[in-house]
């Protein structure tokens, strides 16, 4: 490769320099077939970064106290030096917005551009989850609509009304996601057009629903069809469509929270992959630039210093250990896939017959496009990487007095460790499984939800508070049941809480 005059590696950045670097990075990204949305790179100050933090990555957030709390927390932690700010925030939108912090050095800005504007950006555009669940082109418009709508509601119905509705929705936010059904993409105009119709239609719909009481005692012996006919896991959706007394604007707010939750759902499922992909590309792109002679050694040293900090994985007994670092795992997995493709060992050929020796770029793109964390790990985690990370698998059953080491990084343990790690990223194991099983529409309109524990892990105490929030939306009795050893449903939380004695009451 012909050596060229390197780009200026001064510490202070300026817009000319940013543009020069950006052009070079883009050229290399194209070379590696990274397909991205148009980049919109915004330079902001630390304070603005804290604002962005507070709104949990939404570029336009509606007004709510919880964001104020997050802001105060961030500010306090930052001021006391307990935490540094992230170098960047990137938003899954078209054009893809990334924030660069004013304080970063030129090297850091280049790193961030490669990481966010080409790494994350291409992931947002290419990964199947993002493709099918989020619509990058309409999200900004939708958030703007949500902000204005909530603002209007506050003016019409009072801040505290809207706030309590939002509080309740936030408590159930994780249960406002469709996991299997794919929502249709609709544009803002359609959304607005439908919204007015929906308000009126839904209300009338709900009223008639409650009027459909079966006539007479003719069928009383038959078991009445329960409603909903099948358990519903999307609690917020169920509320939006079926809560008897909600006002139209409250339904719309439930819908907004649900949509926002849905928008972030793919990000939760692809943390390791998304960060790993971005780290892999900032590393690959910048080393490529170095090989071309476009960046200097000084630049590379600063870059590598930061890079190794980001992808460091402390051991389990280190004071800095707080679980597996998704950056480290993801980055090393992508590096490892490239290695398997380019220099496969006998072991790799045995474990990965399809990809060993294949074109690494094709394989990497395939992996990025078609997997989420859980499947990505179970598909691509190699024995070599498990050895490098020295992974071991602890089985902790509260019935026994010991924690058992179930498997370690050896021949007999690879598969167990790999599937355990993959399960660890399976959201349906991490998030609790609570479904709406019955709404007694013919009787007292009480709502029954059922908690199905994963590996008999009980529900945390916060359930009582959440049930209160749910009650404020449903406005009739709400109870949460769990199946006990005898196969009966036992009430574990209810609102309004009648008496302690009735806790033992068996639900039908």
């Amino acid at each position, binding site marked *: 490769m012909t050596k060229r005059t390197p780009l200026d590696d001064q510490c202070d950045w300026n817009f000319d320099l940013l543009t020069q670097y950006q052009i070079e990075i883009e050229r290399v990204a194209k070379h590696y077939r990274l397909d991205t949305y148009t980049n919109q790179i915004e330079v902001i100050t630390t304070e603005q970064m804290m604002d962005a933090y507070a709104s949990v990555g939404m570029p336009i957030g509606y007004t709510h106290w*919880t*964001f104020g709390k997050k802001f105060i927390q961030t500010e306090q932690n930052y001021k006391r030096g307990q935490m540094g700010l992230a170098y960047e925030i990137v938003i899954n939108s078209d054009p893809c917005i990334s924030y660069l912090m004013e304080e970063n050095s030129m090297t850091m800005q280049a790193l961030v551009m490669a990481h966010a504007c080409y790494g994350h950006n291409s992931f947002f555009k290419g990964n199947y989850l993002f493709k099918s669940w989020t619509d990058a082109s309409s999200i900004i418009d939708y958030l703007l609509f949500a902000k204005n709508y909530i603002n209007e509601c506050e003016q019409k119905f009072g801040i505290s009304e809207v706030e309590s509705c939002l509080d309740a929705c936030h408590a159930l936010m994780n249960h406002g996601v469709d996991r299997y059904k794919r929502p249709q993409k609709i544009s803002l105009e359609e959304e607005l057009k439908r919204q007015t119709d929906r308000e009126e239609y839904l209300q009338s719909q709900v009223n008639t629903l409650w009027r459909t009481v079966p006539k007479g005692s003719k069928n009383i012996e038959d078991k009445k069809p329960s409603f909903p006919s099948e358990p519903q896991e999307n609690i917020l959706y169920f509320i939006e469509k079926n809560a008897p007394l909600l006002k139209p604007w409250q339904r719309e707010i439930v819908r907004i929270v649900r949509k926002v939750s849905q928008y972030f759902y793919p990000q939760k499922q692809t943390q390791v992959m998304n960060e790993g992909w971005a780290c892999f590309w900032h590393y690959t792109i910048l080393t490529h630039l170095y090989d071309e002679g476009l960046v200097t050694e000084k630049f590379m040293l600063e870059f590598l210093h930061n890079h190794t900090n980001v992808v460091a994985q402390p051991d*389990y007994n280190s004071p800095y250990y707080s679980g597996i670092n998704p950056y480290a795992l993801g980055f090393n997995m992508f590096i490892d896939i490239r290695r398997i493709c380019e220099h496969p060992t006998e072991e790799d050929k045995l474990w990965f017959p399809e990809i060993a020796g294949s074109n690494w770029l094709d394989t990497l793109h395939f992996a990025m496009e078609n997997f989420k964390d859980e499947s990505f790990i179970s598909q691509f985690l190699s024995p070599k990487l498990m050895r490098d*990370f020295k992974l071991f*698998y602890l089985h902790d059953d509260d019935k026994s007095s010991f924690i058992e080491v179930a498997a370690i990084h050896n021949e007999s343990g690879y598969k167990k460790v790999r599937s355990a790690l993959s399960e660890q990223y399976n959201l349906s194991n991490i998030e609790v499984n609570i479904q709406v099983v019955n709404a007694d529409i013919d009787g007292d309109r009480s709502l029954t939800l059922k908690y199905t524990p994963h590996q008999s892990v009980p*529900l945390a105490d916060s359930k009582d508070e959440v049930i209160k929030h749910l009650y404020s939306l449903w406005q009739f009795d709400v109870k949460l049941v769990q199946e006990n050893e005898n196969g009966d449903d036992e009430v574990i939380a209810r609102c309004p809480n009648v008496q302690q004695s009735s806790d033992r009451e068996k639900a039908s």
Partner: protein
Amino acid sequence: MANFIDRRLNSKNKSTVNRQRFIKRYKSQIKKSVEQAINNRGVTDVDRGENITITKKDLSEPVFHQGKGGVKDRVHPGNDQFVAGDQIKRPPQQQGQGSGQGDASNSGEGDDDFVFSISKDEYLNLLFEDLELPNLEKNQLDKLIDYKTVRSGYCAEGVASNIDIVKSLQGSIARRIAMTSSKRKKLQELELELSLLVDDKLDHIQEIKNLKKEIEIINKKIAKVPFIDTFDLRFRNYTKQAVPTSKAVMFCLMDVSGSMDQATKDIAKRFYILLYLFLTRTYKTIDVVYIRHHTQAKEVDEQEFFYSQETGGTIASSALDLMAKIMDERYNENEWNIYAAQASDGDNWADDSPRCKKLLTENILPKSRYFSYIEITQRPHQTLWQQYKEVATTTDHFAMQHIKTVEDIYPVFRELFRKSKNKVA
């Protein structure tokens, strides 16, 4: 392609609204915290901002999540000693992650308090929220203190920024009409004459020539009248109008006798500092008269009131005497809302207490809007309290409270100046 946008100059306080919402929501907790904080303050720095502590429990946003127990499978990195089948003793159930059980995402339960600072303004607002001077009446037209600027017509002089264009041009038209009317009349006559001469069958060459010349002169004269003159300019006029304000005076009466020990004095001072902050913050135009007394009363300034060390025996009526005298001299009850706050340890010359009652009921209470008495003592009440008690049963605008410790100051203060529900008109 990429677009760079410099957002650094955009507004940075995007979260301010949310922050205010947050403070509003947790007002009750924050207030509790403020109340605690006020007691920990030194006498001189009651009005700084404050670090507010709220326990995390109070601001939880609950979600369903998995609790402790059950079967948990976890993969950890950095194996240095284990082989499959090893059994490890369960670490004690505490926070910390000694053996690598730190799964932060699932068990986000800590009891750290949530600390943040509020500004001085936010702090004082919270401190004095819902407080007011009782029975305050806006009855005085005080020419010295409060004015409102109102429009009052137009005037011929003023600054350029106040020029009223419409009025000025109207003036200009009027002036031009006025100054040219006689000339126009003459012009009309001459023109008529001219047309007659022109139409005449005879030739009047010389006359026509003269007439035309005359018409030309008049036209020139008319054109010389200026389009706009300084004389035309009209300026919007503003005057200051006195508005009714409430003139109020607060008498602070403090006992500094020998029986008041340092702790008691400190409590009294704290009380008055609160009062002072409250008054200066809420009412811009209020007089404060400081009176300290032992056997003799003396009117002093703020500095001396709070910091002087002078002391002696106790005759409470001396202060009331002085107050009545000052009221007569300077604060006519028809013009002033008169308030008083008296602080004492209740120790008084026994014979003097009935005299205090008499002074109060006859000279002071009829003229004042509100009189509050606080007694700072840990001993049983003495004659002064008993005498005052009788006053309190018969009079609405007399209030008395008992302070035992520093913690009582703020609640008592709130009690004394609580906003009344049915406001006096």
